[in-house]
């Protein structure tokens, strides 16, 4: 069973709906017992970094989440701010992140090489997987996902970079460290490409 963490942040229902259509068992989970019963976890996120971290910390789920991810090594997929929360922290706020993947979340440069960057980065962009197995299996070539963000994950170690995207320069659009994965885009809002990615996660 896939636990979609329901902490009042992000489109838990849309993710649940996709798994339902795929006939893959998944439920919205807001309790430690629910996390213990799951074999993998989706951590959605929208909003600002501190708001999302604050809600997660206040949900009381953090100890159970840490046990599931760090000790039991259940696969976890962070989405958008959920991916950023895997970092040590973010320029957007003061709250520390989980620090499960070494790196920091930075704001896009408003200008680069004399070119103005429209922010937020909003819309459909290409994603180039570094590793096209597992999460990005059968997602090579003309693959587009929906992005909506002004901050991006800067990985301290390139070994953790799972995918990159170009927006006035390359940025990290996917990260991985063992069982811990994150994507900056919204697979639950990315039509068939997103459905495929969520299906791939269920098979990890």
């Amino acid at each position, binding site marked *: 069973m896939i636990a979609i963490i329901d902490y009042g942040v*992000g489109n838990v229902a*849309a993710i649940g709906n996709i798994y339902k259509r795929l006939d893959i068992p998944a439920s919205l989970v807001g309790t430690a017992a629910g996390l213990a019963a799951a074999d993998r976890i989706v951590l959605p996120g929208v*909003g600002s970094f501190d708001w999302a971290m604050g809600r997660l910390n206040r949900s009381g789920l953090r100890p159970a989440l840490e046990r599931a991810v760090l000790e039991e090594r259940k696969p976890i997929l962070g989405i958008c701010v959920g991916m950023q929360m895997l970092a040590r922290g973010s320029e957007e706020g003061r709250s520390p992140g989980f620090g499960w993947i070494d790196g920091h979340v930075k704001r896009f440069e408003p200008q680069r090489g004399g070119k103005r960057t429209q922010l937020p980065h909003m819309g*459909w962009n290409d994603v180039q997987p570094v590793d096209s197995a597992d999460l990005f299996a059968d997602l090579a070539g003309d693959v587009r996902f929906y992005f909506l963000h002004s901050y991006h994950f800067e990985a301290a170690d390139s070994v953790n970079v799972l995918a990159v995207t170009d927006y006035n320069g390359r940025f990290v659009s996917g990260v991985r460290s063992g069982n811990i994965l994150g994507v900056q885009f*919204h697979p639950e809002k990315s039509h068939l490409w997103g459905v495929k990615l969520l299906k791939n996660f269920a098979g990890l």
Partner: protein
Amino acid sequence: MLRPRVIPCLLVQNGGLVKTVGFAKPKYVGDPINAVRIFNEKAVDEIFIADIDASVLNKEPDYDLIKKLAIECRMPLCYGGGVRSVEQAERLVSMGVEKVALSSAALADPTLVTRMANVVGGQSVVTVLDVRRDKSGAPVVWTHNGQRRTDQLVSDAAKLMAESGAGEIIVNSIDNDGAMQGYDLPLVAEVLAAVSVPVTALGGAGSLAHIKTLIERFGLIGAAAGSLFVFKGVYRAVLINYPSRVEKDALMAGLASNEGGPP
């Protein structure tokens, strides 16, 4: 390459889908949930749903309907109508709405935009500027479904909204609404020149050629349309439609850079 966004704009009134002309004469065109299902199949870039009564009648957003729409949407959803507080925005975002659109409340109190952005993030706060040109042709912002005139010109209002923390400006031409004669391109140019956040044009698109013109002129832009995606033919028969991926890519042919703003 980040692509321009082609966005159906659906108007909701009393739980039904309607389409207006010049912000008046709402015509019933169907059920919103059903429309979202069809737009899912057509793989639309985004969807913008506006409740045209909520602010005018001082009503709360119809959370039951919005929740159903958010669950159904396999594309990003922007909702507008009756949003006046940070708490409402928080509730909408936690229900799965990606972007919350403000109009009258933001113009009356720009700090609302800032306070909202601090909680849900600026990328999720959109301001809609409904614009009617006055006798001299000056683009003046109106609110309350085009019934109240503000004293603000569109470029000043857009700048103020972006500086307050809005992540996107939707500029909607009241004059061109439902006319299907093309976008007010000079109006869009004014807004793009005033801000560095994404801008979406609404009002006037009657054909894919109008969208192509908009994209050719401005590059990275949102192209929203109501009538175009719900009516077909000279008799304005109701038929939900949207360009295929090939047609849509053709609208964007020639774009090869990720440069923000107008070329």
